[in-house]
């Protein structure tokens, strides 16, 4: 015990905590509070019961708790909430973090190991937090001859591009950050950014292994983008729209995977390649080129790249769900909200509590979210599974797969879609 901290004194420990608390409060009062107020001043605030919610009124829930839920509900209609919390970055980051944990535990079970176990007592549930703290506390080392501005910027742009991808995904009816009419084109545009970011970071590191990894990533992403785009054309032909919300809504009767299984298979394989997952993890092939284009990243820069990678994974899985598995559509499994809570309130012993502002989400929205999450998690599971089963393939095998087989299959898929359209089975004015 004395070995760990030989000169430990409890009074000094308390003093250091009080010191930290003092500085934290001082900085928060002088900088934090004004900053929050300034931001709230510029954000467009909602209107509740005919009065504009000012930054000061937003804090009235402290005095009147019954205003909490109406204010929260009003916030939920703002763009800030959609971008930061749901269905934007926060929701996606939560699912991405869950993905990392599930991946580690699942792979461990597959390989007859235990996986994360100690951190957080219950099956290592806090391992991810520990890893994040470790990455934060690590020193960031930049190669001496690196092109520093680009090298610094690359992970940030990577996360930004992944977040932009997430913003295009509709999670439930009406719940999408950016509901653009050319949503699918926007997705292709965002996907087109990733090879550029990769090659920029690889080249700016000015090191041999990242360079080879970057070139490999460029080959891989460019040659798999074409089958990716072609495989989605079938869906666009049948729905006649590029808006992702409308594509998802069009599958209320049956998902497109029933009619376009070839396209779904091609799209799934290209997802694996775009995400650089085994068996297509050539840009990060450990035994050949150390860590590929990630070799020179250290500390939180590496952490940012990992965050971006898993956000991208979530976004691709969600895109698969939206395009082929019917998005949020599914039978109603969410129970209806009990009416008597709104009319009578909750009876807690002698007193009855009235909670105004309920329900926060409608039953349809919650049901949609549940189905969307179930389907996305299923797709993510199938994206993770090959890592335990397959070895890595080689660059020539990869290119021949991309340019010969997948493009051919994507064209077959387009012909199937056109056949269904002109036979009058599906599409605008079709039988089904």
């Amino acid at each position: 015990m004395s070995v760990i901290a030989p000169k430990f004194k409890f009074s000094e420990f308390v003093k250091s905590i009080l010191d930290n608390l003092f500085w934290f409060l001082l900085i928060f009062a002088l900088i934090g509070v004004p900053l929050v107020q300034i931001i709230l001043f510029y954000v467009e605030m909602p209107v509740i019961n005919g009065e504009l919610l000012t930054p000061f009124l937003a804090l009235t829930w402290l005095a009147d708790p019954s205003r909490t839920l109406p204010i929260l509900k009003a916030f939920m209609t703002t763009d800030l909430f959609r971008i930061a919390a749901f269905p934007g970055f926060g929701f996606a980051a939560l699912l991405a973090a869950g993905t990392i944990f599930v991946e580690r535990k699942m792979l461990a079970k597959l390989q007859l190991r235990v996986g994360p176990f100690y951190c957080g007592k219950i099956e290592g549930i806090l391992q991810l937090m520990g890893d994040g703290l470790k990455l934060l506390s690590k020193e960031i080392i930049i190669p001496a001859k690196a092109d520093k501005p680009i090298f610094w910027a690359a992970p940030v742009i990577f996360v930004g591009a992944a977040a932009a991808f997430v913003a295009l995904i509709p999670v439930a009816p009406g719940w999408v950050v950016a509901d653009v009419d050319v949503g699918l084109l926007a997705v292709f545009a965002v996907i087109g950014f990733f090879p550029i970011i990769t090659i920029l970071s690889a080249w700016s590191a000015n090191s041999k292994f990242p360079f080879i990894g970057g070139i490999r990533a460029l080959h891989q992403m460019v040659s798999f983008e074409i089958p990716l785009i072609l495989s989605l054309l079938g869906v666009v032909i049948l729905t006649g729209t590029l808006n992702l919300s409308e594509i998802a809504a069009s599958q209320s009767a049956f998902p497109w995977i029933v009619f376009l299984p070839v396209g779904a298979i091609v799209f799934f394989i290209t997802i694996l390649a775009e995400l650089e997952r085994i068996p297509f993890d050539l840009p990060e092939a450990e035994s050949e080129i150390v860590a590929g284009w990630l070799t020179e990243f250290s500390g939180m820069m590496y952490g940012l790249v990992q965050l971006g990678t898993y956000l991208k994974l979530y976004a691709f899985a969600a895109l698969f769900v939206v395009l082929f598995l019917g998005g949020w559509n599914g039978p109603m499994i969410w129970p209806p909200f009990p009416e008597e809570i709104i009319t009578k309130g909750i009876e807690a012993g002698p007193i009855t509590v009235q909670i105004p502002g309920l329900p926060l989400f409608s039953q349809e929205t919650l049901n949609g979210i549940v189905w969307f999450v179930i389907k996305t998690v299923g797709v993510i599971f199938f994206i993770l599974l090959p890592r335990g089963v397959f070895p890595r393939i080689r660059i020539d095998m990869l290119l021949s797969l991309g340019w010969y087989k997948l493009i051919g299959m994507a064209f077959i898929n387009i012909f199937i879609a056109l056949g269904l359209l002109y036979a009058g089975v599906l599409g605008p004015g079709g039988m089904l």
Partner: protein
Amino acid sequence: MTAELPPGLALQKVDERIMTLNVGPQHPGSGHMRIIVQIDGDYIVACDPDPGYVHRGEEKMAEYRNYITNIPHLERPVIHDSCNILYPYVLGVEELLGIEVPERAKYIRVIASELNRCIYTMYWLAIYGIFLGHSTMFMWPAGDRELLIDLMEKMSGARVTHAHFVPGGVRNDLPPNFEDVCLRQVNYFEKRIKEYAAIFYDNPILIARTEKTGILSRQDAIRLGTTGSVLRASGVDYDLRKKEPYDVYDELDFQTNVLKEGDSYARSKVPWLDMMESCRIIRHALEKMPKSGSVRVKLKPNPKGGDDSVYKRVESGRGSLGCYIVSDKKPEPYRVKLSVGSFRNLIALPYLLKGEKLGNMPSVYWSLNYWPVEADR
């Protein structure tokens, strides 16, 4: 510029297209060595293996210790295969000192040697798996290896570096009930390694990736002096356990595995097939072993050899492993020379990698059944 170069050095013309990669010694795909690879795009133009980072001077150390105290340090180069690397030394010392080994000790040695061959091969297979990006194939052999390590621990008291073989037999007799436990563990082990076919050896991606890469023809394999699984994968039926049987290998029933292809896939498959043969040998040896009797001849303290030399070799996990001992009537050997299979297999690497793709480098390199520490000695 025509500067005077020291002898042995030469200037090399640098091509703009060619990039030199230092794969190792700090590289996840190299082991304790460096491979200097020159690549043109994705193709390897030239390759120069550069071992020697873990040289320990085992042979020189052996000249300062007597015949018995040489045992613990001579097994250090391959701690997973420590019985086999000690085997030729012990056989040689026995011949120098003129010791006759008890029958039971010979069987125990064969069992220990085969167990060690499996332990080594499992470790090698695990690394082969992770070199190909197959993380399950890294974890499974590393875990199943524990079965046999437990057996060796029961037998000798140590998980690795057993120091179990001594001139005149083995150090200790088997613990009670060892035969039953050994039979059970080995049967389960054999069942497990047969399961590897489904996930690894029959995996279409693995076959497409390693088949027809790094082909070593029969003539080249003989000409370059490769041994062990590399030689047998090229179609040469050469196994010292059959060709020059030592101890009781001539009384046991087993066969050698020979494949004709000579590519990375065949080279990775031969050790796996050999492990199944090892299980057969162990079962047969347990059956034929005398149930009781002495396991060690008592030696004089500080034994001295005559004015003589002896060369003995055995089939280790990596091929022929020879030991040349020169004695000059002193308690210490005058010279101990180890001739190891790893180094002889490494010689083939530059020939195999020339013209290959960079992605094939780890699989071809590790399929050569090469252990860096043993090669450096």
